[in-house]
């Protein structure tokens, strides 16, 4: 199973290798020609701004979108969205989606024979506060098989989508949980070749924010910014 992973490469830089061979679906989808540089001023083009009208009242609480409560381990996921300069990104739209506690998505294409939870859609949205903070209440997603290679299982994760200040700050990524043994075998995670950069995808268990008798908590900060292009050469 580990032969789908290339060796770690601390020199690779912070970005993901878009044509990582271990992730089979990238083969005919990752561009095979080099990216073209844009003039510097175009990196400062503002991106879209979203307001409260983009949100439903309970979009931040994935456990309260139906009459009944979803099954699984209730968790609080919170953190801050920052620029590379460390300043908070205010009013950033954060969108999340995830599998249910059994590892199944509320999606027609998902054929994993784990139960659908009628009380869990697995999607949320919020805007960051003045200090860049976001917060979701949800349940811990389960792992699931995905057919990329023999006996392939995704480590538990929550998908995150973010809009920053500038158009080029757009980010879609995944948050992982500390201590998950499946991370060592996951080609999507390992497409981030630098172990140090990979750690940036893993949340921290957050004892201070747990709510006694109610929910565990994880903290994950997200840094938006230019990561320097697609290949190590372009990072110079």
């Amino acid at each position, binding site marked *: 199973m580990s032969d789908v992973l290339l060796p770690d490469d601390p020199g690779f830089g912070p970005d993901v290798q878009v044509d990582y061979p271990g992730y089979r679906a990238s083969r005919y*989808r990752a561009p095979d020609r080099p*990216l073209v540089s844009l003039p510097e001023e175009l990196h400062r083009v503002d991106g*879209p701004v979203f307001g409260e009208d983009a949100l439903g009242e309970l979009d931040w609480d994935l456990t309260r979108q139906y009459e009944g409560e979803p099954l699984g381990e209730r968790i609080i996921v919170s953190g801050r969205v920052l620029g590379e300069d460390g300043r908070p990104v205010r009013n950033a739209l954060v969108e999340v989606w995830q599998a249910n506690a059994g590892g199944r998505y509320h999606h027609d294409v998902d054929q994993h024979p784990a139960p659908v939870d009628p009380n869990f859609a697995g999607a949320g949205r919020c805007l960051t506060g003045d200090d860049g903070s976001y917060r979701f209440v949800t349940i811990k997603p389960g792992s699931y098989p995905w057919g990329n290679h023999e006996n392939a299982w995704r480590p538990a994760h929550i998908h995150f989508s973010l809009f920053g200040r500038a158009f080029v700050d757009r*980010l879609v990524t995944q948050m992982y949980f500390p201590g998950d043994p499946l991370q060592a075998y996951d080609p999507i995670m390992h497409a981030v070749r630098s172990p140090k950069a990979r750690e940036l995808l893993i949340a921290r268990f957050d004892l201070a924010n747990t709510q006694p008798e109610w929910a565990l908590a994880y903290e994950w900060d997200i840094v938006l910014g230019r990561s320097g292009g697609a290949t190590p050469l*372009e990072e110079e």
Partner: protein
Amino acid sequence: MTLPPTPSQTVGPFFSIGLCRRAENELGSSLRLHGRLIDGTDEPIGDGVIEVWDAARRKWGRCPTDAQGMFEFTIDPPEPCLHVNVFARGLLKHQVTRVYAPGASDHVLEALPAADRATLVAVGEDGALRFDIRMQGPHQTVFFAV
């Protein structure tokens, strides 16, 4: 202080539950922009999502691709271009491109070789604009480093 940026990861196959809960593909009123998202084997990409940003008018839109790889937007005529982000299962990082109105140009477009330029210019077709996005191959759409 410079913090390391959070790396990108793919949207995966199930993004529509989070990103496509409502129709968001009307960012203008006068012109239809449509096209197909196509992989390196000339097959449609049916699990992609296209975002467009009309920076001049500050209007944004998003549309998932269907089984034929088709996406469509209602826009106003680009002046001169719309910014485009391409997301899909299999894409570990979204790709950034631009769509120009036929006949439009600017210094970004002019800096490209003619064959590459053509990949960014929409085709006028039955009163609409058609813009296909090819991820690979000799006619691959130009994607920009950001």
